[in-house]
């Protein structure tokens, strides 16, 4: 009996710990700042989207949103393509070189992003890649290749070897093996990888902070950091920005909970 009560209390407490702040943000985005401060938990007295209109008019958030969409889409697609091609190659090369390549990529997993920021900054300045969208895409791809290759190689390695052997005996070339056998079979793993790539790229602050200073090139997290200075501590406006930045992820999460949970858990090491 006491077990049931403590279980209920603990589970409810943590559930409220997530529900209440979420509601504060949702309601807060429809309140004036004064209303948010005096009554953070109450429903908004008037259900309006005024804050959203004000944010759209007075800031470049629409532009940041567009930048985030472009950067995330290109980064995810490119990473998926390069990583799946390389992982398939690595899983088929059954010698020292294959193993070496695998170790080379997974070594990148152990290195936290903060370790290489000076080298990356210096390289990107030299190559004139700072303050460019494609520069941001390049660093996203380079830094997410290790985790993607780690997961996809593990997947390709556990496929039965006979499929590939008999197909190549029948004259299928490696690229054909990749396109007609490996890719279709790996759709679930690729889905998982694409989801966590999507989430970590959309949410990343470090690389935009490092490489982007022009306001028209900022992604959402970087733009939000700027708003905090701009709006002083006008939290109703900040929460409106939080809503705009989180909504795409929240909608997709609600639609594909299971895929999100397994995908993000597979990429948990990337934090």
């Amino acid at each position, binding site marked *: 009996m006491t*077990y049931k009560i403590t279980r209920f209390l*603990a*589970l409810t407490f*943590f*559930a409220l710990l*997530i529900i209440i*702040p979420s509601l*504060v943000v949702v309601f807060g985005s429809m309140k004036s700042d004064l209303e948010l401060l005096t009554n*953070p938990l109450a429903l908004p007295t008037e259900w309006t989207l005024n804050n959203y209109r004000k944010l759209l008019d007075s800031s470049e958030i629409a532009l940041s949103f567009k930048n985030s969409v472009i950067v995330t889409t290109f980064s995810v697609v490119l990473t998926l393509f*390069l990583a799946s*091609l390389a992982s398939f*190659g*690595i899983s088929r*090369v059954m010698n020292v070189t*294959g193993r070496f*390549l695998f170790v*080379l990529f997974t070594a990148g997993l*152990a290195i*936290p*992003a*903060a*370790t*290489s*920021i*000076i*080298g990356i900054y*210096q*390289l990107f300045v030299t190559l004139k890649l700072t303050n460019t969208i494609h520069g941001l895409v*390049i*660093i996203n*791809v*380079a830094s997410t*290749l*290790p985790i993607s*290759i780690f997961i996809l190689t593990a997947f390709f390695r556990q496929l039965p070897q006979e499929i590939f052997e008999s197909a*190549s*005996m029948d004259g299928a*070339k490696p*690229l054909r093996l990749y396109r007609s056998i490996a890719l279709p079979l790996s759709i679930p793993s690729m889905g998982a990888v694409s989801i966590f790539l999507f989430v970590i790229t959309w*949410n*990343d*602050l*470090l690389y935009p*902070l490092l490489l982007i200073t022009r306001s028209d090139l900022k992604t959402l*997290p970087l733009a*939000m*950091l700027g708003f*905090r200075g701009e709006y002083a501590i006008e939290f109703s406006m*900040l929460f409106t*920005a*939080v809503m705009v930045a989180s909504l795409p*992820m*929240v909608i997709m*999460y609600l639609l594909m*909970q299971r895929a*999100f*949970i397994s995908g993000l*858990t597979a990429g*948990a*090491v990337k934090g």
Partner: protein
Amino acid sequence: MENKTETGALRGASLRSEVRLKKKRRLADVNNRTFLLMTTPAVLVYAVFFLYPTLTNFRYAFYQWDGFLDAEFIGLNNFVRAVTNDDVLIKVLGNNIEFSLLVVIFQTSLALLFAVYLVKNTRASLALRTLYFFPTILSSVSVALIWQFLYSPNFGPINTFLRSVGLDFLALPWIGSETITLRALAFTQVWFHTGQMVVIYIAGLQQIPKELYEAAEVDGASRWQQFKSVTWPMALPTTAVVMAYTTIQSFRAFDLIFTMTSGGPNDSTSILATRIYLSAFNDLQFGYAATQSIFLVIFIVVLTGLQRRVFRAKDQ
């Protein structure tokens, strides 16, 4: 007569399989080159834009450089400074250890507790898992802004609530205090990622054979005894994974801490990751920042090595 045809057939078969084997080998050699070629685009991007800057990063550790003018080689001076003459770095190391320890201890034990509670695939427990997991999809910047509001000393909901129920002495300056804020940040990090670890734990717990629990029940073991003698030892490999993930995540809490406090007040919430960034881009000491990033790598290697050793010892 019969015997002869049989051996003939056998010989033919072995000949055919030999041909087949040869063809297979030749194919494997030709294909190996193509397979290697398939890895080159990824290897190039990774080597040029990640490995190379990571290595030059280490090179700058031996230079004095403001990020703009020419870098000047100064040998081990940066290292000497880091070890003998940098109180802030020592403070930051202490912060990092405290932050990571708090996060690992609380996140792992909470995740285990909730996983035990939610291990059955009932509708309610699936719904709660989905809810607990929810913060994971938010950006660190969003989470930081939300908790900055909740923690606000004067008007924040947490302190308003505490005052309204007469617990004024608990209404602490969660943000902006040199003693409490690091712990408040650790709490936010735990709030952020516990749901993810619950899912990992549940996957581990569901693999424990049911017979073990049945046997324990026959022996009259209480719930706590079952946990101690079945769940805990059987979930040890999962615990190792969860602790390793949590440790790595706690070292990567750059986004969260940078947005919430930028390491302040007075460096009391800075961890190695934020300190490296601030040394370079605020103090314009790129060389010294690079030196500190070597400390970060050493720190992580030692920590993960230690964890691995502890769990290997426990396994035996």
